């Protein structure tokens, strides 16, 4: 089961859709882990002939299936950080008529969306589909450090060690949700940890 229905929330919280093939000159698809399933679902030979796939497996074994789609270009990166310079380079050389498709975890989609926005694509024109882990990329509002793949609420900031409450308040610029100290008034009074959507 790679699909998860996020509960309705505040307007700040990103909402994801289902990838659909759109008319375009070229297509850039960026995905991690189970995000590959969304690409497999939308792929057609015509679409793939003009598609560049950038994929980060995160320990999954979808890469061969994506390669078998015969995209115009295929790149497999070990991590997002290792792939981001390639993403930037592809966007820098791209022309109008490029369609961007993002699939997988919120952290991957948020960061790749941020690169596409910086390259001049309106964020509303970028397609997204969530698949796989429901972990979040969090920013500590106190020390500004980013903690990746947060699955519990509250959690401990990996930079400053504060106990942080997981908010739905999201920043497109940072590609992260906001984490706020939960025991500032009464240090040590921390509610028990649970899953973010439990």
């Amino acid at each position: 089961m790679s699909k998860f229905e996020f509960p309705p929330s505040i307007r700040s919280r990103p909402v994801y859709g289902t990838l659909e093939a759109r008319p375009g000159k070229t297509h850039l698809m960026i995905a991690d882990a189970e995000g590959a399933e969304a690409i497999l679902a939308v792929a057609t030979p015509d679409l793939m002939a003009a598609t560049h796939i950038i994929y980060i497996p995160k320990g999954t074994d979808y890469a061969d299936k994506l390669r078998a789609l015969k995209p115009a270009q295929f790149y497999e990166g070990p991590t997002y950080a290792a792939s981001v310079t390639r993403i930037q380079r592809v966007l820098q050389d791209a022309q109008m008529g490029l369609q961007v498709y993002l699939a997988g975890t919120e952290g991957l989609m948020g960061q790749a969306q941020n690169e596409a926005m910086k390259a001049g694509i309106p964020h509303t024109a970028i397609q997204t589909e969530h698949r796989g882990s429901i972990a979040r990329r969090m920013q500590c509002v106190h020390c500004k450090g980013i903690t990746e793949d947060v699955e519990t609420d509250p959690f401990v900031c990996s930079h400053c060690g504060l106990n942080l409450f997981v908010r739905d308040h999201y920043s497109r610029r940072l590609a992260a949700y906001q984490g706020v100290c939960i025991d500032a008034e009464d240090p040590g009074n921390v509610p028990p940890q649970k899953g973010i959507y439990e």
Partner: protein
Amino acid sequence: MSGAEKIAVRVTEVSPLNELVTRFKFEPVAGGLLPTFSGGAHTVVEMRDGDITRMNPYSLMSDPFDQTAYTISVRRDDEGRGGSLFMHKNISVGDEITISNPVNLFSLDLRAKKHLMIAGGIGITPFLAQIKQLDRAHGNWELHYSCRSEALGSYVDYLTNTHPNDVEVYYDDQKQAIDLENLLDGQPLGTHIYVCGPKGMIDWVRGKATELGWPREAIHYEEFLAPQPGKPFEVKLAVSNKVIQVGERESLLEAIERAGVDAPYLCRGGACGMCETSVIDYSGNFIHRDHWLEEDEHASGKKIMPCVSRFEGKTLVLDR
């Protein structure tokens, strides 16, 4: 009062440019400075023509940072209801008239990496102000300007002299046309397109760009519709409890205003949506001319944009 705030101005220059287009310059009667504006903005000019008050929107074409005066260019429309003819024939230097504060429904998206402008005929005017604004910010832009002939090419000399490398002019009578597909193909990522001109040109550019995968958010357009004359008709205004007659050469909105009813408006050209009015009852046919309402709304018989749309039939009752 509805609409944007009003400014009393004096006409300080009337310059015929060619057979069809005349430029007007306005300076504030009270002295001081006019409000600044952004490229693409328009002002609504009030024309008192006997009993009739017409209010037509015209794009501001002067430098947005020059607050001493505004200039507009008016193309004479011999077929229209007489607004542009009135400007050409009855307005002269020294006249005092009323215009509105600038309103912008066609602004630049300053997040764009490049601004690609396409103008047809008198649609050139908003771009003149936008170009001044972009030049100051060292913006990246180019203009493709299509006109009927050299004689009718308003501001062609000015544009090609000041920006020889950024302006391309096409003359219909020399069978020159914008090669749109090749123009759009190869534009760098982050390019926004702006089109102002006749409806056919706007539809053509929007259609082609969409077909080539340009995002809707990167396609900007402005088409002012002048209200067209039509058969007179009667309207009941339910809220104000008045029955009014709409004359052949006035718009429904102007007739409502003439009856002393304050109705909301902004652009008076079917674009902004401000004057949207609910229909309570009708028996007859709507002549919808706006590009605000969706097709299904036009078909529903529940809404009308009184600035440009008309009605033919027995009964029309509006929630106004």
